[in-house]
């Protein structure tokens, strides 16, 4: 099962991150330019130390902007994917229910409960429908897992980069 989720919340947060990325990129450029302007106006060791701190601040800000842009776009893509997967899940469940079947963790099975007498042809039709839906269900599960795994891998990598950037800024 896809497990649900809220594509709208992912899309909204993705949008928030993309706006953050744009704003922080501009902030980083502004900070870098203002510290660069100090070079000709202020000389000495204190100036050099201050400018290096300013450069590191601008670089860290740029890193946060890049990670936010990357994850913002990722969340928006995943939101679209998840919406499609949830729609397909709902469709498969409806098809299964109309065929007297139900979707479980084990796949598509005969729906529980009493059922009337069925001839061999009817049973064969039900089994054929079950097999088709079961294959579609397994395919949906594979695509859901694959989509999640890609998002998780990208988030892990981004988390590491953000952690390193914050640690470097605090360690200066």
């Amino acid at each position: 099962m896809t497990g649900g989720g809220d594509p709208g919340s992912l899309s909204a947060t993705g949008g928030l991150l993309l706006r953050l990325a744009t704003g922080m990129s501009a902030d980083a450029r502004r900070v870098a330019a203002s510290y660069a302007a100090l070079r000709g106006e202020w000389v000495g060791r204190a100036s050099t130390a201050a400018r290096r701190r300013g450069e590191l601040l601008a670089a860290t800000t740029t890193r946060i902007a890049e990670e936010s842009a990357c994850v913002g776009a990722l969340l928006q893509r995943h939101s679209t994917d998840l919406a499609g997967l949830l729609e397909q899940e709902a469709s498969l469940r409806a098809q299964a229910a109309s065929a007297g079947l139900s979707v479980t963790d084990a796949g598509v099975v005969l729906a529980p409960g009493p059922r009337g007498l069925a001839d061999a042809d009817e049973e064969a039709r039900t089994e054929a429908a079950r097999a088709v839906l079961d294959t579609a269900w397994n395919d949906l599960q594979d695509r859901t897992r694959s989509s999640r795994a890609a998002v998780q891998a990208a988030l892990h990598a981004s988390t590491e980069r953000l952690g390193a950037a914050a640690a470097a800024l605090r360690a200066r």
Partner: protein
Amino acid sequence: MPVHRVDPAVLDAAGRALGPLRERALETEDDLLAAPLLAGDAELQHVLDAWVDHVVDALRAVGEEVAEQALGLRAVAAGAAVLNDSPTRSVSAARPGTPR
């Protein structure tokens, strides 16, 4: 140690450039922590929450650094203003092109 003259206005300008970054870092931290983010899968949710924690922490680091740098620039600007106002300037290096 030689004392170097610097126009306090230049330092003020650098300090002012930090303002929007600090505000954005603070605002975004709140927005991110308040944003509903429902992944629909426990493992993915955990990874997503960890990413949000890290970006918020990075924004805090930026906010802390901005505050420290702004304070440092203000202190240097105040010192430079006093130095520039002094009738007996002990200056070893003037700004290039600045008439003395």
